[in-house]
């Protein structure tokens, strides 16, 4: 059972996750583009001179959050910045990308700081939701997604820490992750023995399982805001 589950999580589920992520986002955009437009426009004033710059500035600095709640804004920026870096850090594991390789693996993952940052941010978001009025407007989706993210981050951080603090008995060497990810990319999946035989194998599978779930759910939950924010913010600038 465990063998089947771990194989499923490491190979087919990863393919399913990435296919769902990419095709799902494409599908979501097709649905929007096939919907009718509006005859006029829906601007809000005043408008910046450069609409593109204004849009990017708004998407990346979240002024609405800055005005609304400084602590929330702080954790939002922290979370999204850390998320982006962690994503890039994983790309470095997935293939031979020279630009990303120029930064050592340990540094790219923030020497452990990114995991802590993400974890603390997610806990903040979770506790914020438990307070009025956010509790009243929250639905199951909000909590489940935060919990999925939290577990992904938690197990990822455990894996990273084993590597970082030289827990040789537990450590899965970076090279083996690279072998594994590259084999998936080459469509010739391999499960290196250093991964499968490590006492941390179960942690690895759990990390991957929750990460896969996050990717699968991405296009079909509110996480789509990461893609929809740009066209949505352009509506009020037309």
């Amino acid at each position, binding site marked *: 059972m465990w063998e089947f589950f771990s194989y499923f999580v490491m190979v087919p589920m990863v393919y399913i996750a990435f296919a769902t992520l990419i095709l799902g986002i494409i599908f979501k955009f097709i649905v929007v583009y096939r919907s009718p437009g509006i*005859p006029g426009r829906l601007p809000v004033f005043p408008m910046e001179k450069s609409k593109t710059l204004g849009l990017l500035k708004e998407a990346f600095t979240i002024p609405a959050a800055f005005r609304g709640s400084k602590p929330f804004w702080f954790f939002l920026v922290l979370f999204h910045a850390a998320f982006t870096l962690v994503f890039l850090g994983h790309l470095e594991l997935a293939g031979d990308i020279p630009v990303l390789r120029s930064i050592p693996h340990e540094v790219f993952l923030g020497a452990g700081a990114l995991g802590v940052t993400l974890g603390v941010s997610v806990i903040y978001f979770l506790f914020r939701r438990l307070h009025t009025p956010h509790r009243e407007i929250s639905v199951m989706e909000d909590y489940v997604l935060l919990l999925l993210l939290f577990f992904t981050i938690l197990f990822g951080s455990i894996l990273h820490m084993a590597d970082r603090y030289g827990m040789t008995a537990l450590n899965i060497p970076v090279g083996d992750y690279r072998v594994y990810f590259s084999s998936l990319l080459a469509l010739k999946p391999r499960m290196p023995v250093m991964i499968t035989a490590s006492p941390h194998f179960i942690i690895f599978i759990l990390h991957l399982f929750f990460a896969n779930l996050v990717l699968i759910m991405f296009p079909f939950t509110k996480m789509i805001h990461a893609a929809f924010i740009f066209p949505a913010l352009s509506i009020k600038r037309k």
Partner: protein
Amino acid sequence: MEPEKLQGMKDAIRGRLTKPMRYYLDLCTRCGLCYESCHVIQGIHKREYSPVGRAEVVRKVFRKYFRPSGKFLPSWGEATDLDDRVMDELLDAAFSCTGCRRCVMHCPFGIDTGLIMGIAKVLLIENGTAPEELLMLSDAAVEKGKSIAEFKDGYRSVIYDLEKQVQERLGLPSPEGVIPMEKKNANILYVALAGARSIVNPAIIFNAAKEDWTLSFFEAVNFGQFLGDPEKMKFIANRVVNEAKELGVKEVVIVECGTAYRIPKFMLGPLPFKVTSIVELIHRYLKEGRIKLKEGALTAPVTYHDPCQLGRNGGVFEEPREILQILAKDYREMSPTREFNWCCGGGGGLVALDNENFRIKSGKPKRDQIVATGAKVVVSACENCISQLETIRSGYDLDVEVRYLTEIVAENLVV
């Protein structure tokens, strides 16, 4: 709900799933940053009076019928059936929203709750529970558009009486032609409201500026938009568009009415004429030296209320301020102001409904703003706003005077 009726409801939702709506329905993270941004929740603390609370009433219905989670795991997004309770919630959500779009400023994604309320409104129409007042008013406006020939003579005789008032104010030798009608190729087609004030004051200003203008047979207000019926909205708006095309005017000038300005200016697509607010036109006359105002004529402290559809949603911020700075000795700005200004609570057709107690409560932030300025005169440039500001004034027993901008301009023209 019977299957046939439910199908009609689903079709009504589908009909409103435009590109912006698709984005707005899917990307809300329920972060709650908009929660306090609505003037209604400032006065009445109820989740459904927050932008996200309002929008979620619609989204939960949308999820039920248009998302797999709504079918297989309704609790995932608290998807809800369209039953009588939900219809009541939709009514409460849609007709407590003025469409002021202040929440757009407070949403990290710029979600327009007013637009989402469009779905609630078509569902109410489909269900036969849309507000009677708005149904009647919009039907009357549509009827007038269909049989305008029958209205013309009666309207002309009313205008004849108003011409005398304009003549008296300007000391003209004859009242004849001071309010021209059906004048071909005029520079301006002016679209007024039903009240005499909205015709007389602008007519005084046009005559003082020696403008080549003509008066529309139609009133600018669009009850189809307030009701949330896209077809009626278009029909009502097109009455004026067609009139302007037939007369061959260069510019259509809209009375002090925010929605009446926003619809032709932004919501109908490209038009073969320019659309201007009367406020912008007065400002232009002043810049060109075509009219002159008595400087500092208003001695009491004056403040200006930005109508949401004219300011935040129309971009007319500077013009009324520059006019008032000439007229007022002591001009005071509200806080917050301009694009962050609090809605007065009267827009979206709400002043036409029987809801005065609600509007007094939801007008609390506006009341607080006015009091904080210490102003004795509150000026605005939208009939809905003026009516609601009057409700706030009497509801909270404020020692202020509420005035139309055109009215004080017409009163203080140097002639």
